[in-house]
C-alpha cells in the first residue's frame, strides 16, 4: 500500500531490511553471521542518527507531537502547583474580563449607538440667525432646501408632541414625534411588526395612524403582534397602530415612544415658523463642509420666519457625534484604565512566572542536561503562558458576561434605552482572545529571556546554590514591580480626582436643593380640562388631597422635575436692559405650585415664594434664580423689575411679569454643567402650563412607603387619574450623576484592583528575594547584624522598586491628570489632597506587604544557615 505519512517503525523496518540484505551478501562472501552483521552495521554508519534525521524531517508531525507532549507536561506541572495556577488565572481573568466588558460597552455605545443604515452620513440640520441665536427649521424652508442642496440625498422633518395614552391599564403621557413621510426610509430601519407610513397616511382627512416604539409595545401591549391594525386612544381620539419599531430604534434623540404623521398647520403662516427639527442623509462621498457651504449659499433665498427678521443660516452636524460625543472622552478614560489593569496583571503574571521559573531552575537544568535545547525550554514557557492566558480569557469572558448586567444598571443616561440589556458582543470576545494571545506572549518574554541568557547548568552545581538565580532576572523583577506600582499610582490618582470631583458635584450647596426624602410621580390632568385655569384648579385640589396623607410635610407640582433629562428653555428679555445675544439669552423655565421651594428646600434669597394669592386674576409674577438676577441686573435689586418671555417690540402690559423673589441656583440635568439662568412662574398664571406635570412631595421617613397612600388619596378625587413613575428625587439625581458616578465607581474598582495586584507583586518579589538570600542574611547575622538591622535591610531592598515606581507614577500622573481635566469638576488636576493620600496609601500598603518577608528574614538563624553549607 502506498503511504504518505510514514511512521518511525516503518522507516526503522526499512533500515533493518537493508542491514539484513547486506548481511546476506557479506555472508555469501564467506563471513560468519556475526562478522557479516557487524560489517553491514559499520558500512551503514550511525543508524540512530539516520532515524533521527527521518524523525525530524517529519516536521508537522513533530510539531503536533511536541505541542501535545508540552501541553500534557504543562498541565501536570500546573496541577502540581494549584495555588499558583489559580492565582495567575484569577489575575488574568480580572485583567481580560474587565477589558471584554468594557469593549462590549464601547461596541454598543460608541461604535453602534443606533441601528440606522450607514449612520455616519446622517446629519442634524440646525440653524442660527445673524446674531448667533439658535433657530430651528420652518416647514416652508424645508420644502425648498430638501431637494435643492446637491449633497443631500434625503431629509426629514420632525417635531415633538405629547400625547395622552388612555384605555390601557396604566394611562401614560407619551413623548411622540410628528415626522414626515421620509423619516424612516431615510434612516433605513424596517419595522419590527406592521408597516411604515405611506403617502395615504399623510393625505388630508386620512384616518389617524401611529407607529409605536418597542418600549410602549412591551409596556402596554405585552408585545402582542395583534396590536397592529387595532385602534388605541391618544388624547381621547381613536388612532390606528400601523406598525411597531424594533428595540433600540431611535429617531432624533432617544426617549421618544411613538411616531405620528406630521400635521400641517391650518394657518399657512405657521409653515414659516422655526418650529421643527430636521435630519438629513448626505449623498455617498459628499463632504460635510462642502454641503454646508452650498446650503448656506442657498439660505438667503429661503422663506424666512416673519417673527425673526435676522435671517437663517444652516448648520450641519454629524449626528453620531451628537449621540456619542459626551461618552467618547469618558470611555477613552475608562478603557485606558482597564488597559492599565491588564498591563499590571500582565506584569504580575510575568513576575510570578519569573519567580516560578527561578524556583524551577533545577528542573530546567536537568531538562537541559537531558538534551532539551534552550529553544525547547522557551517554547515550553510560551506554551505555558498561552495556556494560562487562554484559561484566564475563558474565565474573564465568563466574568464579563456576569458583570455586564450589573454595569448596565448604571447606564441609562449614557445612551442605552430603558430596559435594554447589554450582552457580551462577539467583538468583545475577539478582544478577549486577542488580549489572551498578546498577554501570553508578553508574560512569557521575561522568563524566556531569562532562560535564554542565564547559565542553565548553574543550579546543578552545589556551589552556586547560594547565588541568586541570575542578576538580570532579579533586575527584571524589580523593573516589573516598579512598572506595576507606577501604573497603579496613575490609576489611583485618576480615581482619586474623579471621586473628589464627584463629591464637589453632589455637594448640597452646589445643587441648591435637598433631594433626600422627596417622592415624585408623573401625573396628568384629564384631557377634558382644556383651559389653563381649570387645569391649575384641578392640580390645586390634588395637592389638597396629598396634604392630607399622614407623613406628608409639603407637596407641589412642577412642569419639569430637575434631573429628569427634559428641559424647557426659552428666551427672555429683562426690562430696561439691551437685547441679549444668544449665549445668555435662554432661561430654564418651570411652572410651579407655591410649595415647590419648600419641598426641594431651595433657598429663597430675597423677596418671597409664590402664594395662593398669585391667582389667575392677580398681577403676573415671577421668581428668578441668583444667576439670572446677577446677569440681568448686576449690583441692583431685581425685586419689582419686569421680564418678558415674548418676542417682538409691541408688547402688551400682560406680556410682562414682575419679579417678586430670588432663589438659589439649582443643579442642571447634565449635573456637571455650570448653573443656568432659571425662571419660575406660578401654574395659576402660566397659560402654557402643560397638562402633564410632576408631583413632588417631601415626606417624613421613607418616601416610597407613602406612595400607595398618596395614590389612594388622589383616586378618591378622580379614580381615573394616572399616577406613574413613582420614584424618589434621589433616584432622579443619581440618574443625572450616573456618568461621573459610573466613572468614579469603575475607576475606584480598577485602581483598587491595580493596587492589590501591584502590592501582591511587591510581596512576591520580596518573599522570593529573602528565600534566595537566606545564606547572605545568615552571614550578616553571624557577623553581628541585629534583627532590626536585617528588617531595615529587607525593607530598604524591597522599597527600592516601590520608590522608583512611585516617582515614575507621580510624574506620569501629572501628565495623565491633564487629560482628565475635561471630566473634573472644580478639581485641579494636581490636587494635593489626592496626590498626598495616594502617596500615603501606597507607602502603607507597600510596608505592610514587605513586613512579612522582613520578619521572616529577621528570624533566620545564622547557625542553621551556615551549617547547611
Amino acid at each position: 500500500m502506498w503511504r504518505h505519512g510514514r511512521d518511525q517503525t516503518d522507516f526503522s523496518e526499512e533500515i533493518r531490511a537493508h542491514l539484513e540484505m547486506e548481511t546476506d551478501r557479506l555472508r555469501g562472501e564467506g563471513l560468519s553471521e556475526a562478522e557479516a552483521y557487524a560489517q553491514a552495521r559499520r558500512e551503514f554508519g550511525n543508524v540512530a542518527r539516520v532515524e533521527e534525521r527521518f524523525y525530524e524531517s517529519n516536521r508537522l508531525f513533530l510539531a503536533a507531537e511536541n505541542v501535545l507532549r508540552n501541553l500534557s507536561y504543562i498541565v501536570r506541572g500546573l496541577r502540581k502547583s494549584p495555588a499558583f495556577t489559580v492565582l495567575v488565572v484569577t489575575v488574568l481573568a480580572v485583567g481580560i474580563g474587565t477589558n471584554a466588558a468594557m469593549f462590549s460597552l464601547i461596541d454598543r455605545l460608541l461604535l453602534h449607538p443606533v441601528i440606522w443604515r450607514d449612520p455616519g452620513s446622517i446629519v442634524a440640520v440646525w440653524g442660527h440667525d445673524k446674531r448667533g441665536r439658535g433657530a430651528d427649521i420652518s416647514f416652508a424652508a424645508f420644502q425648498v432646501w430638501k431637494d435643492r442642496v446637491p449633497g443631500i440625498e434625503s431629509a426629514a422633518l420632525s417635531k415633538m408632541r405629547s400625547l395622552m395614552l388612555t384605555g390601557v391599564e396604566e394611562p401614560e403621557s407619551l413623548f411622540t414625534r410628528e415626522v414626515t413621510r421620509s423619516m424612516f426610509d431615510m434612516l433605513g430601519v424596517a419595522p419590527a411588526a406592521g408597516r411604515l407610513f405611506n403617502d395615504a397616511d399623510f393625505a388630508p382627512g386620512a384616518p389617524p395612524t401611529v407607529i409605536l416604539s418597542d418600549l410602549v409595545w412591551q409596556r402596554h401591549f405585552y408585545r402582542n403582534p395583534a396590536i397592529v391594525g387595532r385602534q388605541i386612544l391618544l388624547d381621547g381620539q381613536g388612532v390606528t397602530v400601523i406598525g411597531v419599531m424594533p428595540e433600540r430604534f431611535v429617531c432624533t434623540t432617544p426617549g421618544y415612544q411613538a411616531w405620528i404623521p406630521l400635521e400641517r398647520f391650518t394657518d399657512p403662516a405657521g409653515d414659516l415658523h422655526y418650529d421643527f427639527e430636521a435630519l438629513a442623509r448626505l449623498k455617498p462621498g459628499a463632504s460635510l463642509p462642502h454641503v454646508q457651504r452650498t446650503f448656506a449659499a442657498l439660505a438667503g433665498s429661503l422663506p424666512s420666519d416673519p417673527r425673526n427678521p435676522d435671517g437663517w443660516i444652516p448648520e450641519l452636524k454629524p449626528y453620531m457625534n451628537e449621540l456619542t460625543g459626551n461618552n467618547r472622552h469618558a470611555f477613552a478614560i475608562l478603557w485606558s484604565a482597564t488597559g492599565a489593569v491588564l498591563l499590571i496583571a500582565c506584569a504580575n503574571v510575568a513576575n510570578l512566572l519569573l519567580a516560578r521559573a527561578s524556583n524551577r531552575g533545577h528542573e530546567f537544568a536537568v531538562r537541559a542536561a537531558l538534551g532539551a535545547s534552550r529553544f525547547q525550554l522557551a517554547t515550553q514557557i510560551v506554551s505555558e503562558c498561552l495556556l494560562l492566558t487562554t484559561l484566564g480569557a475563558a474565565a474573564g469572558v465568563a466574568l464579563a458576561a456576569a458583570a455586564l448586567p450589573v454595569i448596565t444598571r448604571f447606564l441609562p443616561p449614557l445612551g442605552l434605552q430603558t430596559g435594554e440589556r447589554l450582552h457580551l458582543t462577539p467583538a468583545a470576545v475577539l478582544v478577549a482572545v486577542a488580549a489572551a494571545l498578546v498577554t501570553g506572549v508578553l508574560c512569557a518574554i521575561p522568563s524566556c529571556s531569562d532562560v535564554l541568557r542565564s547559565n542553565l547548568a548553574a543550579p546543578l552545581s552545589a556551589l552556586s546554590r547560594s547565588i541568586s538565580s541570575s542578576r538580570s532576572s532579579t533586575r527584571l523583577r524589580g523593573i516589573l514591580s516598579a512598572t506595576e506600582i507606577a501604573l497603579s499610582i496613575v490609576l489611583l490618582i485618576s480615581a482619586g480626582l474623579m471621586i473628589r470631583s464627584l463629591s464637589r458635584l453632589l455637594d448640597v450647596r452646589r445643587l441648591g436643593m435637598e433631594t433626600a426624602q422627596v417622592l415624585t410621580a408623573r401625573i396628568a390632568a384629564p384631557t377634558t380640562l382644556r383651559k389653563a385655569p381649570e387645569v391649575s384648579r384641578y392640580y390645586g385640589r390634588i395637592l389638597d388631597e396629598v396634604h392630607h396623607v399622614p407623613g406628608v410635610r409639603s407637596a407641589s407640582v412642577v412642569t419639569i422635575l430637575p434631573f429628569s433629562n427634559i428641559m424647557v428653555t426659552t428666551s427672555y428679555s429683562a426690562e430696561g436692559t439691551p437685547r441679549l445675544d444668544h449665549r445668555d439669552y435662554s432661561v430654564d423655565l418651570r411652572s410651579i405650585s407655591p410649595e415647590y421651594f419648600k419641598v426641594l428646600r431651595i433657598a429663597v434669597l430675597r423677596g418671597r415664594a409664590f402664594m395662593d394669592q398669585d391667582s389667575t386674576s392677580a398681577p403676573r409674577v415671577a421668581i428668578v434664580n441668583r444667576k439670572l438676577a446677577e446677569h440681568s441686573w448686576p449690583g441692583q435689586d431685581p425685586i419689582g423689575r419686569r421680564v418678558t418671555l415674548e418676542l417682538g417690540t409691541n408688547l402688551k402690559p400682560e406680556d410682562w411679569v414682575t419679579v417678586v423673589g430670588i432663589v438659589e441656583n439649582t443643579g442642571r440635568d447634565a449635573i456637571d454643567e455650570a448653573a443656568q439662568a432659571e425662571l419660575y412662574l406660578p401654574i395659576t398664571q402660566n397659560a402654557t402650563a402643560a397638562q402633564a406635570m410632576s408631583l413632588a412631595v417631601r415626606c417624613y421617613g421613607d418616601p416610597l412607603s407613602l406612595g400607595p397612600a398618596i395614590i389612594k388619596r388622589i383616586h378618591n378625587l378622580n379614580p381615573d387619574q394616572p399616577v406613574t413613575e413613582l420614584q424618589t428625587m434621589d433616584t432622579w439625581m443619581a440618574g443625572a450623576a450616573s456618568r461621573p458616578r459610573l466613572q468614579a465607581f469603575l475607576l475606584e474598582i480598577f485602581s483598587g484592583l491595580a493596587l492589590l495586584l501591584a502590592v501582591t507583586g511587591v510581596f512576591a518579589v520580596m518573599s522570593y528575594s529573602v528565600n534566595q538570600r537566606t545564606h547572605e542574611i545568615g552571614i550578616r547575622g553571624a557577623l553581628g547584624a541585629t534583627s532590626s538591622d536585617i528588617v531595615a535591610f529587607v525593607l530598604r531592598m524591597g522599597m527600592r522598586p516601590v520608590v522608583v515606581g512611585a516617582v515614575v507614577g507621580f510624574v506620569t500622573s501629572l501628565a495623565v491628570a491633564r487629560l482628565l481635566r475635561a471630566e473634573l469638576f472644580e478639581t485641579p488636576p494636581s490636587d494635593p489632597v489626592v496626590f498626598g493620600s495616594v502617596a500615603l496609601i501606597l507607602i502603607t500598603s507597600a510596608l505592610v506587604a514587605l513586613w512579612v518577608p522582613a520578619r521572616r528574614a529577621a528570624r533566620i538563624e545564622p547557625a542553621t544557615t551556615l551549617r547547611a553549607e
Partner: protein
Amino acid sequence: MPTQADNERIALLQGTLDLLILRTLVFGADHGLGIARAIQKQSDDVLLVDHGSLYPALQRLENQGWIKAKWGVSSNNRRARFYELTLSGRKHLVIETSQWRKLVFAIGLVLGPEEVEG
C-alpha cells in the same frame, strides 16, 4: 565491498544524490540497498553512496512526490521497501539532467581541457 582505494572515491556533491537516485530508478523499481549498489556499479565504484544519507534522501524524494514506495520481497526473499519513479519524478529527472549537463559543460569550459581529463 569497495574495490578501489578509498582515496580515489569521490564524496557526492550536495544535491547530486537525488539526481542519481532518480536516474537509477528509470530502469525500474528497486530497494535502497539496490539503488546504492547500482550507483556504485554504474560509476565504476568511483561514487560511494553513504547509506546514512541515502534513506533520508529517499524519504525527501518521496515527500516531494517524485518517487513512491511499497513493501515487497527482494530477489533473495527478504522483505524490502521498493521505490519507483512517479510521472512528476520523471519530468523532474529530465530537467535536472539537462541542467546538470549544462553545469558540467560550463565548469569544463572554465577549468580547461587538461583538467577535465584528470
